[in-house]
């Protein structure tokens, strides 16, 4: 982009995509804001009328809303914790020389390639089912009462399922970062008298910090909107125990046919996501700059 001429030519060239993307974002956003200000219920077609901020007050005072906020954060933090810690551990293991390394690595990546609905159904019916599930069978094998995961610990079960799906992603990113660690640095640390644990703390972890940041950022974006896993396993229940914000909006719109309320919920979700993003960027933006 050296000259004025090339710069304006470049602007002209990217203009169509920018306009398209802008329309793609602005139109739904504008419509959602518009709907959120209407009394708009699918069961009463043609009865739409301006309702002011009633939808917002209604949504924000719903007890399910606070439960949903808590659940959303619990899922994000829980899954992040499991995937980052587990990812580092798995990456360290996979970095070792071993027999069948290639096959093992592919197997580890596999869960990431499975669709969320399928993965959740497999967990629900094959692992966590209190009658036929693998966990129930294991419990019975040692003489314990089978535990009904999805009924008794719905949020934990969902965190477990989602973490299982995202673990390969974290492992993969961290493994590649691990492999870029200079061999001579490790040897230098060895000469300097650092044991395995010291090398991990002083050398490996700081080296991985940027990759961990990337994992946290990308996963947070997707984890704020976990939906399929909830829909096919617990349906947000029992009660609202496993309802997150995404699911609450869905329930409002498509189970209660309240488009206005759901739109208000959607706007609130957008605002909350931006708040999270703001803090996240401030917290870890520094690591990425360095």
């Amino acid at each position: 982009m050296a000259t004025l001429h090339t710069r304006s030519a470049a602007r002209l060239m990217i203009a169509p995509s920018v306009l398209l993307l802008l329309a793609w974002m602005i139109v739904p956003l504008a419509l959602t804001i518009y709907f959120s200000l209407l009394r708009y219920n699918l069961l009463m077609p043609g009865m739409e009328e301006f309702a002011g901020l009633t939808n917002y007050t209604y949504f924000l005072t719903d007890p399910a809303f606070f439960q949903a906020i808590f659940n959303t954060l619990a899922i994000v933090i829980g899954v992040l914790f499991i995937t980052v810690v587990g990812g580092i551990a798995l990456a360290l293991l996979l970095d070792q020389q071993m027999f069948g390394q290639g096959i093992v690595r592919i197997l580890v990546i596999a869960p990431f390639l499975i669709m969320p609905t399928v993965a959740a159904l497999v967990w629900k019916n094959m692992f966590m089912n209190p009658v036929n599930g693998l966990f129930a069978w294991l419990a019975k094998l040692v003489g314990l009462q089978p535990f009904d995961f999805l009924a008794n610990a719905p949020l934990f079960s969902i965190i477990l399922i989602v973490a299982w799906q995202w673990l390969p992603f974290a492992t993969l990113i961290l493994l590649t970062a691990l492999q870029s660690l200079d061999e001579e640095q490790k040897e230098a640390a060895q000469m300097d008298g650092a044991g395995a644990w010291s090398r991990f703390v002083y050398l490996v972890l700081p080296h991985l910090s940027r990759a961990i940041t990337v994992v946290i950022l990308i996963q947070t974006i997707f984890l704020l909107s976990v939906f399929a896993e909830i829909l096919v396993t617990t349906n947000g229940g029992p009660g609202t125990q496993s309802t997150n914000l995404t699911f609450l909006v869905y329930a409002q719109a498509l189970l209660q046919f309240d488009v206005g309320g759901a739109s208000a919920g959607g706007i609130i979700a957008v605002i909350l996501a931006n708040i999270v993003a703001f803090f996240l960027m401030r917290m870890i933006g520094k690591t990425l700059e360095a």
Partner: protein
Amino acid sequence: MGSITLKNVSKVFGAHAVIPSIDLDIHDGEFVVFVGPSGCGKSTLLRLIAGLEDVSDGEIIIDGKNTTDLPPAKRGLSMVFQSYALYPHMSVRSNIAFPLKMAGEDKAVIDKKVEDAARVLNLTDYLDRKPRQLSGGQRQRVAIGRAIVRQPEAFLFDEPLSNLDAALRVNMRLEISQLHQQLKTTMIYVTHDQVEAMTMADKIVVLNRGRIEQVGSPLDLYHKPDNLFVAGFIGSPKMNFISGASAAAHQAHTIGVRPEHLVLSKDQGSWRGTVGVAEHLGSDTFLHVNADGIGTLTARVSGDFAVTHGDQVFLTPDPQRVHRFDEKGMAIR
């Protein structure tokens, strides 16, 4: 203190013996240089001494103790790596302090030792910078600083100057030599550059294909090479090798004459030839002469010897300085 003895040390990777068997004595306070072409096993040998590789057979004795099975940190050695291997996220201060911290030293003691090392190496102003904010030479000095704070029995250098530009390399060469004068600690230095070996070493170990070809002081190797390999490797430009009738005249299979030991004349001499390329360095001129019936010879003459491409010259070897070798390439004395 820092004497190192290798007894029968060998290293085998799979079926390939990188180092068949080596015996070597390094005395306390010596500056020893391992030199050889790439792939000759010199770095492997250094890593065996450091403990970064396990020996396949033999013993490594450091300061009278058998350290063959000890981990690197317990051998009392420090190493400076080719890539410097500084810890990128730590400041210069923490980098230098790292080995002391690992040894569990007192905070005050660490601070003092780091300050001392920084003063010796002119790093005091850079202590709070990160390695990436330093130039190549400064990084090199940090790596050396990290090595000296431990006060090791011996220092190991693995081609430490190969990432620096030519001018800086000459400077650092000098600084490392001065450091050796100051510390008087044993140093083992690996390089493929015979100039570094000649200028720095008390003792040079010439390696080729995992074998020691010759051990000796720089001038020993220069004046009395044991074999063709050492003769060709030490000295720059390379020694000229001549076989055939001219060699037979000296009762040898091959004779070697260094470029600086050829006397040039424009009207008489033993061998006649035409000048191919003349490289003028100012002080000296390197002449590549196509000698009749012998081949290309390199000669080193004074800078004011005026010749150019295509001139006819006569060369005469200095008879006192002709090296003679038998069919196996060993020196005849």
